[in-house]
C-alpha cells in the first residue's frame, strides 16, 4: 500500500470533506482493501498540519457511512463489507467534483455544460 492523502488549503472544499472523499474513493475503487489498517487521526493530522478534530470528523463520517470501523485497541480499519455505491451515486459524486473544480478555475456554468456536451459527443 503506497497511497497518500492530499489536502489543498486553497480549495474551498473544507479539508475534512477533501479527506472523506479521497478515502471513500480509495475504498470504493479497492485501492484500500477491506481490513486495511489506517493511520491514527493524530498521525494524519500531524502529517497534514491540521487539527485532529478535522481528521476525526472525516473518520467519523466514513464510519457513519459504514466504510470504516474503529475498535478500541485495534485502530481504524476499512470495513470488511463496505457498501458499494450505485453507479448513479458515483456519477453524482464525480459530477460534483468536476463542477467544483471547474468553478475554482473561474469557468462559467454555460462553459462547464458545453464541455460535458462536447465530451459526450466525441
Amino acid at each position: 500500500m503506497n497511497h497518500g492523502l492530499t489536502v489543498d488549503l486553497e480549495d474551498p472544499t473544507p479539508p475534512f470533506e477533501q479527506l472523506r472523499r479521497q478515502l471513500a474513493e480509495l475504498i470504493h475503487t479497492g485501492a484500500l482493501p477491506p481490513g486495511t489498517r489506517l493511520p491514527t487521526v493524530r498521525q494524519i493530522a500531524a502529517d497534514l498540519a491540521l487539527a485532529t478534530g478535522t481528521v476525526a470528523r472525516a473518520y467519523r463520517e466514513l464510519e457513519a457511512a459504514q466504510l470504516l470501523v474503529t475498535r478500541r485497541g485495534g485502530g481504524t480499519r476499512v470495513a470488511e463489507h463496505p457498501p458499494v455505491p450505485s453507479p448513479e451515486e458515483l456519477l453524482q459524486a464525480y459530477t460534483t467534483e468536476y463542477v467544483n473544480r471547474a468553478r475554482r478555475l473561474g469557468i462559467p456554468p454555460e462553459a462547464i455544460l458545453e464541455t460535458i456536451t462536447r465530451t459526450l459527443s466525441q
Partner: protein
Amino acid sequence: MLGLSEDGAVRLVRFIGVLIGLIATWATATSSWLSLGRGLMLAPVALGGCIFLGVLAGERWVRRPSAGTIRTAELRPRLLRDYLPRPLMIAVLASAATGPYPGSFYSIFLAISLSLATMLAAGTAVRAVRRPHGQASGQAGTDALRRNSVTAVVAGLGIAIAAPVAGVSATMAAADFGTGCGSSAHYLIGWTATILALANTLLGVYCLALLITRTGARGEVPSATAAASTQTS
C-alpha cells in the same frame, strides 16, 4: 539555522547534545554528593539523557514539515516497532534484564535515573516516528531519517544501560576473585560477572560507535532506505 541544510542542522544539534552529554558525564562522575562510585555509575545515564535531548531537539524544532497550501500524508500507519533496530534493541533489553543487583545504595539511584532516561528515550523515539514528512527527498528518505533517529535513541539507551552494568559487573568480578575463597560457587559468580562485564562493555562501545558512524542523520542511508522501500511496497 545558520545557513545549514536541514540534515546539517540536525547533525549540529545532535553533536551539541553529545558535547553537553560529555560535560554532564564529567560533572556527574565527579559530583561530591554522588559519593562512593554512584556518580561514576550514573555518568553514562547522563550521557544517554543528553543524547536523547539532542535527537529530540532535532526532531522537534529543526525538522519542520514542508510548508505550503498543498499538503500530503501517507496512509501507512507508522509504528515504532517498524523503525526499531531489533537486534540492538534485544541486546539492550537483555543487558537491562541481566545486570547484577549492587544493593539499594546504588540500585535506587540507578533505577530512578534509568526509568527517567527510558521515558525520555521512548518519548523521543515516538516523536521521531510521528513527525511529519520534512524536507528530505521522498518517502524513503524521510523513513531513513526516522530510522536513523530511532537508532540513535536506542544506541543512547544502550550506553545508558550497558555502561553501568559493565561497571557493576566488573567491580563484582574483581571483588569475587579477590576474596580468594576458591569455592565453585564463587568461581561461577566471578566468571558470570566477568562475562557480563565484557559483554556490556562491547555493547556500550558498539552503541557509541553506532552513534558516531551510523546516525549522521543523512537522508540516504542505503540499508535503511532499502528496508523502508520494501516496507512501503
